[in-house]
């Protein structure tokens, strides 16, 4: 297995783990961490998928850097929002979307 393929497979595994946790775990902090795991899997895959002819291609690296900046600010915002949700509802979980919506698909 070439190193690049290893990175690609590792990225896919990270995305799968993160997706599982995002859907299954109820605590908001775990969901936010899960999104970060997905993000790292995506970044790993991007670096692995960059075409390499001799020297590494800088464009995917720049993409990943931008992605990290976005991920950091989005995580900060998500954490702040999670604190507000806990203060307002008493628990750091997603509140049920109201009796009007219960029973719809996706729950």
């Amino acid at each position, binding site marked *: 297995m070439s190193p690049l393929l290893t990175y690609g497979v590792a990225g896919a595994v990270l995305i799968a783990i993160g997706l599982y946790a995002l859907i299954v775990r109820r605590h908001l902090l775990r969901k936010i961490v899960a999104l970060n795991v997905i993000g790292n899997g995506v970044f790993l*895959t991007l670096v692995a998928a960059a075409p390499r002819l001799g020297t590494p291609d800088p464009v995917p690296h720049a*993409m990943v850097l931008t992605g990290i900046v976005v991920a950091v600010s989005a995580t900060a915002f998500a954490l702040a929002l999670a604190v507000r*949700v806990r203060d307002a509802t008493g628990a750091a979980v997603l509140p049920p979307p109201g009796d009007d919506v219960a029973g719809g698909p996706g729950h």
Partner: protein
Amino acid sequence: MPQLAELPLLPWAVALPLGGAALVFVVRERAQAIGLAVGVASAAVGLLLALQVATGGVQHHAVGGWGAPLGIDLAADGLSALMVAMTSVVGLWVSLYSSAYFGAGDGGHQRAYFWPLWLLLWTALNALFLAADSFNAYVTLELLGLSAVALVALAATPAALGGAMRYLLVGLLGSLLYLLGVGLLYGAAGTVDFRLLATAPLAGPAAAVALGVITAGLVLKTALFPFHFWLPPAHASAPAPVSAVLSALVVKASFYLLLRFWFWVLPEAATPVVTNLLGLLGALAVLWGGLRALTAERLKLLVAYSTVAQLGYLFLVFPLALGSVEGFTAWGGVALLLLAHATAKAGMFLSAGAILKASAHDGVSGIDGTAQALPVTVFAFALAGVSLVGLPPTGGFAGKWILLNAALATGQWWWAAVLLAGSLLAAAYTVRVLTHAFTRLPGEPPACVVPARLEWSAVALAVTALVLGFAAGEILELLRVGAPVSGPVLMEQLR
């Protein structure tokens, strides 16, 4: 006076709301006045840009003179111009409405933070519609998602905070999937530029996987059935002007990117299985959203489920226009429906906001007697409903009629049945609201006053949805600029 063709409208469409957002964030005590002025100016720039594209063809601008592949390019074809124009019209009236909606009740907190976030959202929308490369589109998609979530959270109720949190988690997942696809496409084609991607020989499993994850991410963000679960709580619990822009504009942004990828970048990837699957999910959204709107307890939830249903129509573009040589009929019909829904739904949410300010509780039954107290607002709600149902001569009618023709002309009559069933459901839930609004309460009509700006902004948007029906010819001409499909608009089949 400089010629229209020489005005640098592309960069100004992004820079103006961005500068305004920064300014109102610093000068908070004047946020309302400055925000409204910047909103009017941004709307003017957006409409001029549409005129520029209509008269001068596809526009292109390399920011800072760098150009692709190093720099950021902005580009506007007919579809981009229409989306920017739609943002301008809805944005103008929502700005006017908001200047009277947010009071000083909570120490002016909502009013102070609404304006920077709203102008940032506007920036993100314009930048996304004008992005010439798929990575720039990713950045604007994230900017759009974050500012939209913050605007929902502005309501600060437990329901709004929960809705915002769910919206944020879904939105971030969607944009990460999109980023993964953009990276994989770069690996396969060596470019992120939309024009170069369209000409690059993309084939093989890498391109297919890339398009798959991009579609998954964007479908999640567009709230296509069955991924719509996050939309009703978020759209129903936000402040009324925010609900209006979320339903009218924000969900259209990810749909616009879907069109970019499916029609420009990889049209050859469209197999009947995929296009019919997307169409089928759209059809289910039309039926499910309509049924939920019919049974929703709360007024704004009803309008939010109506958005789920109306978004479903848009996905009929995939089976009807993709892969067909003369797909312009369905393409034009969907574009008209998209514009009509944006204006009508914004008008409907704005009038719902005014009604709720004046009524006893937010249940649909709590609006009894509103027609006596707020006749203008109820008129706006009814007119917007007429366009959503698709009665002539509204824009909703023009779009549905053309789409109906496309379904029959391509021999796919089952999509026509979906269109008709959806119209029936829309008529039912609109009438359900109007029945309550026109129920007379005993005694004197309640003397409730809401600011005139709230009522007339809603009317203006509903009237725009009506006028779109008369301007359909001009809109279709603009849409032809740089369109990925060709052919005449077939209108013969039903005569």
